[in-house]
């Protein structure tokens, strides 16, 4: 089976640059070949095991003081008045 690298990269929101396609295709196929080894094992009727923790404890639903907004916004690549700034994403409104 071969993988459609363009579709995959688009789903993962990772741009492809020159040379990426061949490299990714080669490595993904190498790994998928190893993944397909699992087809040798019958797993019909076996319960999947998703989490190793024996218990999941929920905390009381009591609001806690949030982290200061300023401290969090410091890590934003671009911000203004504690809002995230992004490039313009809508076109000019035509009159």
């Amino acid at each position, binding site marked *: 089976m071969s*993988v459609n*690298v363009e579709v*995959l*990269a*688009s*789903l*993962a*929101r*990772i*741009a*492809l*640059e020159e040379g990426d396609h061949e*490299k*990714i295709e080669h*490595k*993904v196929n*190498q*790994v*998928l070949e*190893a*993944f*397909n*080894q*699992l087809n*040798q*094992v019958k*797993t019909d009727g*076996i*319960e*999947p*095991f*998703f*989490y*190793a*923790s*024996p*218990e*999941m*404890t*929920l*905390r009381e639903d009591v609001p806690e003081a949030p*982290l*200061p907004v300023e*401290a*969090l916004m*410091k*890590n*934003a*690549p*671009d911000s203004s008045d504690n809002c*995230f700034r*992004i*490039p313009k*994403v809508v076109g000019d409104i035509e009159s």
Partner: protein
Amino acid sequence: MSLNAQLLHASYKELRTALDEKEVSSIELTQAFLERSKKLNTDLNAYISFTDDLALEQAREADKRIAQGEKGGILGMPIAVKDLILVKDYKCTAASKMLESFTAPYDASVVTRLKQAGAPILGKTNLDEFAMGSSNENSYFGATKNPWDTAYVPGGSSGGSGAAVAARMAPLSLGTDTGGSIRQPAALCGITGIKPTYGRVSRYGVVAFASSLDQVGPMCADALGSAAVLESISGHDVHDATSVSAKVPSFVALAEKFVVENKIKGLRIGLPKEFFSEGLDPAVDKVIKEAVSVFKGAGATVVDIELPHTKYSLATYYIICSSECSSNLARYDGIHYGHRTSKKTTNLEELYSLSRREGFGEEVRLRVLLGTFALSSGYYDAYYRKASQMRTLLRDDFKKAFEKCDLIAGPTSPTTAFKFGEKSGNPIQMYLSDVYTLSTNLAGLPGLSMNVGYANKLPVGLQLLGPWWRDDLLLGAAHAYQTLQPETLKGAML
């Protein structure tokens, strides 16, 4: 011998005594380790950054507590922290360009606990980007080198934490282990490291890679030091729903009791035939068998066991970890935090895609793509669900094995440290370096690696695996071995 030289060779117990008896102060220790670390870091690249101000402030505070009569634990003992774990107000890069300028807005729960325990944090150690790798070659900041021979990798992903302890740039360190990332570098660097039972330690404030597998754990020259750190960082945390509420035992006291009461006698050690098969370096095999005979000589019995699904652990692991990774790393969008492309973009999708292409390294992109594939419509059942069913079979292998033995022993890694570039072209070859450690994380079991000798002039790690929540048994057995074989505790570049 100068203060420095004495400290560099000291075991956990000797350092503890020196602090408790006020033969040395925490500030002297902290300064000595910072000085040595900075000198060696030019060569080894074990640290990405240092946190001097924090370390010195904590050391002064620790000295006050010691002066007031407080003792034990890791009070006053410097520690290095993997740069995947948040330390408030300091950079946390995950060794990625994506987080190159990210400053932690809060402390990870394990860091809060280190601070409460009084362990000065020396700095942030190097790793494979987002903890994805087995050689440290995937770090955006350049690889850490193995202190035993700088032409060789230190292992990964916690290679910086491993090398720092091996070269005595820190007496203690924290790593994280998703598929062997504490144990494999501990083996390749000749030290002790433990991946605790899943749920033992909080993951809050640790950059997520594969949430159902990730666990923070200690690295130290010896088992007692590892026990002391584990005791300090374990326990329920309201911020991590998978951390368990069970009482935290005193791991140091239990390990010492194990030796005093000679609990090696009658201990049943299981050797899985699958861990001694094709691919294992005969020189490693020989050292491992000698280590097992030390246990035998002390009264343990050795039983042959089977873990029949081991050969499927690699595929199972990489499907699950890639799937969880693609989901966890979806948060890096170039908007909220992390790298944003400087190229002109005309829509949001382009902004996300370019920022992620530029911010993530090659291995991280590969895993995100693999995970995206495994979770995509039409493939979910064939990959993610299938792997989760395999996980049940792997877990049940261990359940059956522990009916026949008390703990499992084998090599941590099939080879000693390898040279830079030796495996970086082929992902499967690199993944095979963790072939004996992966199934532990899939099952959620505790696993420990300790140095048991040398082959090819490089350290060899013995892995011990225990039943769920028996971290104490692994530490006890390791402490017993190290009491009998203290020469396996020596450091590098001394």
